[in-house]
């Protein structure tokens, strides 16, 4: 972990999910940015030194997996995580190809979410 707070970008077209995730991770010591679309996320990705990106899969236009593929190109160092209601929707091989290091299911378990993020960002 870096000395300063890791910069976490959360992407979901559902603002309430963004709000709840921000709430859940309030005490986790991250600086949190949120984006409501893949486009906005890509803009933030190019403007800020993002350490980790956690994105929803099903979004209008670009999907979460597509966003992560783009993120891998633009900022390979950023930890890539996916959050989805249907984990079986994306083949495991595709996840591996995208370098996704954590798959979080919706609805998530708070403690497990925090542990998963900590583990992913430590690695």
């Amino acid at each position, binding site marked *: 972990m870096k000395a300063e707070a890791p910069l976490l970008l959360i992407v979901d077209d559902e603002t309430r999910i963004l*709000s709840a995730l921000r709430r859940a991770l309030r005490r986790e010591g991250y600086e949190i940015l949120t984006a409501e679309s893949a486009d906005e996320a890509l803009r933030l990705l190019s403007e800020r030194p993002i350490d980790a990106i956690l994105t929803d899969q*099903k979004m209008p236009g670009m999907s979460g997996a597509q966003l992560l593929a783009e993120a891998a190109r633009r900022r390979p160092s950023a930890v890539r995580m996916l959050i989805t209601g*249907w984990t079986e929707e994306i083949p495991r091989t595709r996840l591996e190809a995208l370098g996704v290091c954590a798959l979080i299911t919706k609805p998530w378990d708070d403690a497990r979410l925090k542990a998963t993020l900590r583990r992913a960002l430590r690695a």
Partner: protein
Amino acid sequence: MGVCLQQRSEQRPSGVRIVVLQPGRAGAAAQLGRLGVEAEVEVVHDVERALARARAGACDLVVAAAKPSAAAERLLEQLRHDGPPVIVVDRALGNEAALGWFRRGAADCVALGSRGSETLAAAALEQIRGWRATSRRSATGRRIQELQRYSEDVIQKMNTAVLVVDPSGCIASCNPPAAQILGQPLQALLGRRVAGWFPDAAGRGTVDRVLAEGVRFKGLESAITRPDGSVVPVGISCAPIASGQAGRPRGAVATFQDLTEMRQLQRQVLQTEKMASIGQLAAGVAHEINNPMGFIHANLFQMNEYVAELRRVWTHVEQLQKCLDPARPEPAALRQAAEQLAALVDEVDVSFVLSDLAKAIRESQEGSERIRHIVQDLRDFSHHDKERVPADLNLCLDSTANIVWPMMKHLVVLEKEYRELPALDCFPMQLKQVFMNLLVNAFQAIEEKLGSSGELGRIRLVTERVGDDVIVSVSDTGTGIAPEHLDRIFDPFFTTKKVGVGTGLGLATCFNIVQRHDGTLRVESVPGEGTTCRVVLPIDGGGGEG
């Protein structure tokens, strides 16, 4: 004689069979050689044998010797009402004797005198001709009777309800299945007028129009009111029975079917198809429920944390209150408690916690409201209409679009252009099902075309009133339909979708539903560019049954 026979040659009977009853070897039989036609003459000596031959229809004529008279008399008595003609012959016959034989039923009496053979031949020929003509007539009569019995039997044994009516519209014949559908005994139906049983004008007019105009109806859907008041949906086909000459038919024959079971099946298919479309939606809907579930679940967890933190603060507030006891003021303890409290308030960030707690509650409430709506919409969708009710098609279309929206929003921009519409008497759930199918098809066409290209497709919903019709159109920018498929899209079980994706019943069901509303469903498509489905419903729709 020769002349005589030549004149009648055209009518000369063939295959003549004559039985001669005579006591001895010589007699009338010998004289029949002059008959001039090919005849089979059988000589019998016993009256019972003669009778047996006559009764078996084995002869056209019996020639009986007058003596012994007992035999001739018995023969005449037995054949008097039913049998071939009998000519009585005797060596000599006085008028008195001849009259006696005529009275006993003899067809003719011939004296076998000097010209006896010619006389007998002529008499025999005449009798044979006469007998053949009558028996031909009665054979025709018998044949007619046979045919009547046959056709009646066909009607009675048919497993389809059949009614035959006479030109006045009264029942001339009907069969047990008809009696069963009509709920009345067969005998009670004969002679009754048909029109009275139909509660609707369409049914009442059917038979009358067939009789008056000679038109025919096929598969007309109507209903029949039974004497016990119950109403049976029936399909009627009715055709005129041709009259010999042009003009009014000689009656009409109607076949009809009890549609109760078919209606039930139709409802089942409708329900099955609806369930199938709901199945297609399930993933999308689950996703839509899962999102609010996700944040409500997380928020509850967090709210619990907030409450725990606020409880910690409250414990300190209570501490402080104790120090404020005016009886035992403890300024030092008071200051300490106040400092601790201030530190804790800072640590917990109470003002943020309070405002975020309120926000979390608000957001969760909104989420649960969303779930409630989705469940409500789905529940509405699984109902089925009992009867026509006035409905606003804009609302029907919009609530259906709301249900399917979650499954398509990641791929689709939805444009709505709703104009003001008059309330339409309809089966709203069925129409919603049509809209649902059209929307799902539109979405799937876009999904197939765009896949995960990241592009967005467009679905446009337009409602408008044009003249006496309400038009609802659903256009998409999907794959379009190949021209060779366009003819078949309404066929049941026709599908180009992958196994498990489409039932092949979607558009067939839509077509039926729209037809039930006396409307039309038109599909225009440009392969590669998209499809427009247009539901045209007359505002003054028919009164058909659901």
